[in-house]
């Protein structure tokens, strides 16, 4: 927009300056040329009068003196001839010079003088002017003047230089004005753009200047600031709600948990089943609550990252997979699932903090152990592929139909086949949020020949320096 605005404004300025300067240049040149011709013609007329006198009195002495004096004074060549073309007086010009005979002939025929073209600063050719001697009816000779245009051309040059300099100055002023105007209009727009980007990136209380530009844009900036404040307030309320819920809800759940634990001694055999049920419910409550907090934290991290909070943290996927396998081994054994770690020790350094990859892996491994079924084999693997790190948690269990795989990462989604499932339905949603916030992807795919793969691709950490 700035380029177009400037282009239009500049084109207009150039046009205006040209329209003003061009006629001025032409008229200046023409006026000076006219003055040149008039003065020279007047000189010739005077010489012609003297020549007429000389013809009548048959005495050329005065005429010759005049012509000589003129030549000495102006350095212009002049010749006066009679009707036969015989020179009566000459100085600096002869009948042998080019164009002179033609000029004499035309003058003797009393043809109107051919006026020269308008002079230009670079005109150098001498101008030939001729007038008849005598009256209109009785021509008794001709006077020819060859005049240098140097002085007139120099005058025109000076005048043109002045005009062009003025035009240039005007053009510069116009350009400056155009730039100022463009800046005045565009700065608030740029400011607004910065503000919108900041809000989109999750910056809190993004504020833009309200004193710039036209009134309409100032009003817009004001509205934007009010909107930004409202968005910030809403975001703050939301995160405060999460923080408050974290504190207010954790404590009662923690009390409940401890109390239920200490009741165990007093449970009679009859009440054992009910007690187990309560314990399971409390555990589910804990897990759901923990997941909600994790999701809120993942959302917050994503917002912070989008706002440009660069994190240098990285982790080695191989190391973490080997470590996580150890941690999950007993759970896998209990479920009758074989759990295997990557075969290579080769590090796969991902641009993802260790704590986040751990969270993602735990969700995927937990799901695999829970749902792959007894006798299944869960493989943990990672590699560098196409410049990105690829981590896969693959099982050879029953897997999921395609339409379930597509929605497995949506919040609160639970597989319908697991009616007794105690999951919160948030695990994969949290995992996906964590991975995508770091520029990665998380997909739930079908394994070959059967089973499920949770596959993540994550940007590699920058090469560590020596």
């Amino acid at each position, binding site marked *: 927009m700035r380029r177009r605005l400037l282009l239009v404004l500049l084109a207009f300025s150039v046009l205006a300056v040209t329209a003003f300067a061009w006629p001025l240049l032409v008229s200046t040149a023409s006026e000076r040329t006219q003055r040149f011709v008039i003065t020279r013609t007047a000189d010739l007329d005077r010489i012609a009068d003297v020549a007429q006198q000389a013809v009548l009195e048959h005495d050329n002495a005065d005429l010759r003196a005049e012509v000589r004096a003129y030549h000495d004074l102006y350095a212009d060549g002049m010749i006066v001839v009679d009707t036969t073309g015989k020179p009566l007086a000459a100085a600096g010009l002869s009948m042998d010079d080019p164009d002179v005979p033609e000029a004499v002939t035309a003058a003797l025929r009393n043809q109107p003088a051919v006026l020269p073209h308008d002079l230009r600063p670079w005109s150098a050719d001498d101008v030939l002017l001729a007038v008849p001697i005598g009256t209109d009816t009785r021509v008794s000779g001709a006077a020819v003047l060859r005049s240098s245009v140097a002085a007139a051309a120099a005058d025109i040059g000076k005048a043109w230089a002045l005009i062009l300099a003025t035009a240039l100055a005007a053009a510069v002023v116009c350009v400056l004005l155009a730039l100022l105007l463009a800046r005045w209009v565009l700065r608030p727009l740029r400011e607004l753009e910065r503000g919108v980007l900041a809000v989109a990136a999750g910056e809190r209380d993004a504020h833009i200047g309200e004193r710039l530009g036209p009134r309409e844009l100032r009003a817009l900036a004001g509205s934007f600031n009010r909107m930004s404040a409202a968005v910030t307030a809403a975001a703050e309320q939301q995160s405060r709600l999460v923080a408050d819920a974290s504190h207010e809800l954790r404590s009662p759940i923690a009390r409940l948990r401890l109390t239920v634990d200490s009741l165990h001694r007093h449970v009679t055999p009859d009440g054992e089943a009910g007690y187990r049920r309560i314990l399971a419910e409390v555990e589910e409550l804990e897990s759901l609550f*923990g997941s909600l907090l*994790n999701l809120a934290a993942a959302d917050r991290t994503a917002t912070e990252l989008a706002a440009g909070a660069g994190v240098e943290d990285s982790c080695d996927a191989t190391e973490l997979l080997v470590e996580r396998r150890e941690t999950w081994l007993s759970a896998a054994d209990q479920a009758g699932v074989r759990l295997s770690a990557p075969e290579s020790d080769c590090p796969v350094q991902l641009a993802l903090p260790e704590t986040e990859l751990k969270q993602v892996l735990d969700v995927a491994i937990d799901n695999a152990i829970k749902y792959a079924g007894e006798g299944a084999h869960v493989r943990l693997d990672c590699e560098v592929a196409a410049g990105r790190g690829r981590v896969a948690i693959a099982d050879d269990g029953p897997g999921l139909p395609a339409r379930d795989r597509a929605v497995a990462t949506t919040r609160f989604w639970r597989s319908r086949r697991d009616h007794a499932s105690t999951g919160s339905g948030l695990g994969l949603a949290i995992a996906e949020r964590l991975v995508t916030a770091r520029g990665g992807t998380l997909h739930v795919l079908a394994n070959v020949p059967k089973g499920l793969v949770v596959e993540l691709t994550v940007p590699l950490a920058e090469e560590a320096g*020596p």
Partner: protein
Amino acid sequence: MTAQPRGPVAVEGGRRNALRVLLVEDDDNFAESVAKVLARLGHEPTRVSHGGDAAVRHRDADVVLLDLMLPDGNGLDVLRGLRKVTDVPVLVLTAVGDTRTLVRALHLGADDYLVKPFRADELLARIDAVMRRSKLSDQPPPQVVTVRDVEIDLGARRVVAGGAEVSLTGTEFDVLATLARRRGTAVERERLMDEVYGDASRARSQSLGVHLTSLRRKLDRPGLIATLHGFGYRLEG
């Protein structure tokens, strides 16, 4: 500061040592629940609700349970204050589940942490573990550290697991030995790198990961080396 043995006390789980536990917690109901659990096992809980009181009362305690959210300030500040004057084991209890806070607590010298809600037996197990480590750390490290069926001979630089010698590279042994000397205590990643390599650059961090991976495979004792994510490692104590 070590646990004061007070003779056998007949309680559940064969626990013999009654501990004086200082509970720094502002939530009355929660404090009461925790106190009941502790008292049932023969421990002697004392409860204060302000961080300021903790600074005064820690002398009479064998272990401190510290809530990070306190009415008179951040529990982390209380922890910093405590660490200036005492080595008493501190177990951080928190409703704040975010890793950054927990890692900061570890950096400030917390011995372990528990995120609410937790189970009663988990609390007791953690207290036991913390006390055990604190006792170990008071003694000079032995020449041979034995964990489960793994013997780490620090002098001879040999490791025997389940009766068979495990062949480790020099760096792998250095990593294991550094953890073994502080057995049961979390060792910061940077500190581990510094002791093994003499510097803690990013390239070293990668190579440390590779050595730990291979160490785990060679030892094949799941859970022997625990990772405290975002902080460091700990050899089972």
